[in-house]
């Protein structure tokens, strides 16, 4: 786990909300090795999601440097960043964010439309992803026909299907009961331990954080301490 996957160096991030400028991150520096499973915890407004968005290339820092997989992403243009995300990052959100008009398999196939894969290759990749999350029998179901846990599994399969180097998970169990949450977190753990995926997880739930290899605590936009799981 010595190779660095994410390096966040002296990053500042501020937003303008109305007439007010809100400083969210203050000179944050974090390093995440390849194959790590990091839980980011902290109170609301501490900057967890902001940091996650920056690592996932959804937003740009006000200043500072962000390297992911050796590539400096804070200087990429909008289109280049979009293409980088398609190749390197898988996202899992609290409310699953699946396309309601598409079946599970088509939701999973969606990121593959950005690749050069043939229809047959795409179908094969989708089948593998469905198998990994244990939902092969639900391939033709639309999101509204699935339970919350199943929807989240589909979202994880969609995040995995293009074989990204890093998984970004924003409160993935926040909308699930304990048992289902543990199943989802167990799945993430398997993906980290058996498939070598680097995972950054934002959570408020200390039990969820226990599934990670280590936990980072943020408060007022700064790193507090580091705890090994």
């Amino acid at each position, binding site marked *: 786990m010595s190779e660095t996957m994410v390096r966040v160096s002296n990053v500042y991030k501020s937003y303008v909300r109305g007439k007010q400028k809100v400083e969210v991150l203050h000179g944050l520096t974090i390093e995440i090795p390849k194959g790590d499973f990091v839980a980011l915890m902290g109170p609301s407004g501490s900057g967890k999601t902001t940091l996650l968005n920056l690592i996932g290339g959804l937003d740009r820092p006000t200043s500072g440097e962000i390297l992911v997989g050796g590539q400096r992403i804070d200087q990429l243009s909008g289109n280049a960043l979009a293409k980088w995300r398609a190749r390197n990052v898988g996202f899992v959100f609290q409310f699953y964010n699946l396309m309601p*008009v598409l079946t599970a398999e088509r939701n999973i196939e969606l*990121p593959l439309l950005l690749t050069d894969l043939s229809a047959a290759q795409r179908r094969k990749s989708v089948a593998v992803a469905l198998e990994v999350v244990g939902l092969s029998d639900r391939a033709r179901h639309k999101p509204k026909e699935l339970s919350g846990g199943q929807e989240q599994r589909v979202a994880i399969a969609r995040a995995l299907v293009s074989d990204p180097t890093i998984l970004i998970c924003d409160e993935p169990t926040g909308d699930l009961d304990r048992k289902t949450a543990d199943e989802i977190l167990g799945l993430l753990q398997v993906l980290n331990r058996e498939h070598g995926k680097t995972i950054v997880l934002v959570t408020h739930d200390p039990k969820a954080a226990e599934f990670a290899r280590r936990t980072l605590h943020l408060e007022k936009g700064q790193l507090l301490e580091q705890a090994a799981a």
Partner: protein
Amino acid sequence: MTRSGFVFANLLRKKTRTVLTLLSVVTAFLLFGLLQAVNVMFSAGADFVGATRLVTQARVSFTQSLPMRLLPEIEAVPGVEQVMWQQWFGAVWQENTQLFFFATDPARLHAVYPEYVMPDQQWKAFEETRTGMIVGRILADKYGWRIGDKVPIASNIFPQKNGSKAWIFDLVGIYDGKDEEWQRNTNLGWINHAYFDEATLFGTGLAGTFTLKLSNPDQAAQIAQTIDSKFENSPDETKTQTEKDFNLGFFKQIGDIGLIVRWILFAVFFTLLLVVGNTIAQSVRERIPELAILKTLGFTDGNVLGFVLAEAAAMCVIGGLLGLGLATLIGIKIGGGGNFPIAVDHRVWITGVLAIVGLSLAVGLLPALRASRLSIVDALAGR
């Protein structure tokens, strides 16, 4: 799944809304197709007659007849190769169906209108049968008339000397047009002027208009001026113009059809713009988080713009083509046998396709730009 499959899946997200919007597009383009066909008929529809003929009418109005004594003077004008005359008969078929019938000299009609194609034998029969009449193919087919039929036609203007407005003619010929355009105009009937002139109670020795075939169409303006100046300050002043201008003037007596049609279409498309534009905009507003997810997954701003624009275009293209298709079918149904031969032809389709493209851009571009410019972070946070 393909990208177009994704577009159609989104289009069918709310089926009722999509179907209703689609119906409004279909209706608008149906109306567009038919009105544009009317517009073409009234404005460009006279193009097919060419510029080889002039029409001389009374200066005040073509509803006022000219005396036949003008004929030799018109014939004597250099450049005039042949002259025919025609008198509006005011024909009525059965109860109340008005037909376009004219009294003319058969030989002169044949000479001036070579575009009317009919066997020589039938032309000869028309010349030799005083009660003879010929009709265009459309008219014959519509009323099931056959050569040899005795056809009772009333006139709402001219009674016979016995006071009866009921006339009976012998159908001696059915003519076709030399091409598709002329065939579409085979909706006229012609009777023998010599018989009409002798039998009518009044209006003898008169012609509604004179039609002049020119030896050199380039001299049309000069010949028209010569004829009109010849009768200037006489009791029978004339107005001579090309046949195309005459036809357009005839149609324009109803009003500036082109302008009326344009205004109706403007109103239709403005309403359509609001309806479809609102549907697309609403559809985009409803799925801001989904569009943000597309961008999160790596779809570029251009990809997202393309998706929304494609949805708008699909709605307009499907609805537009269905509407134009329906208009074409209705045009065939109602245009074929009427006095006004409208046709939803290639000219209407070209304008229609341009309208579809314009409408797609007009209704899709703004929502598509809005979708493409979404900030992922704000959209996912519901801001």
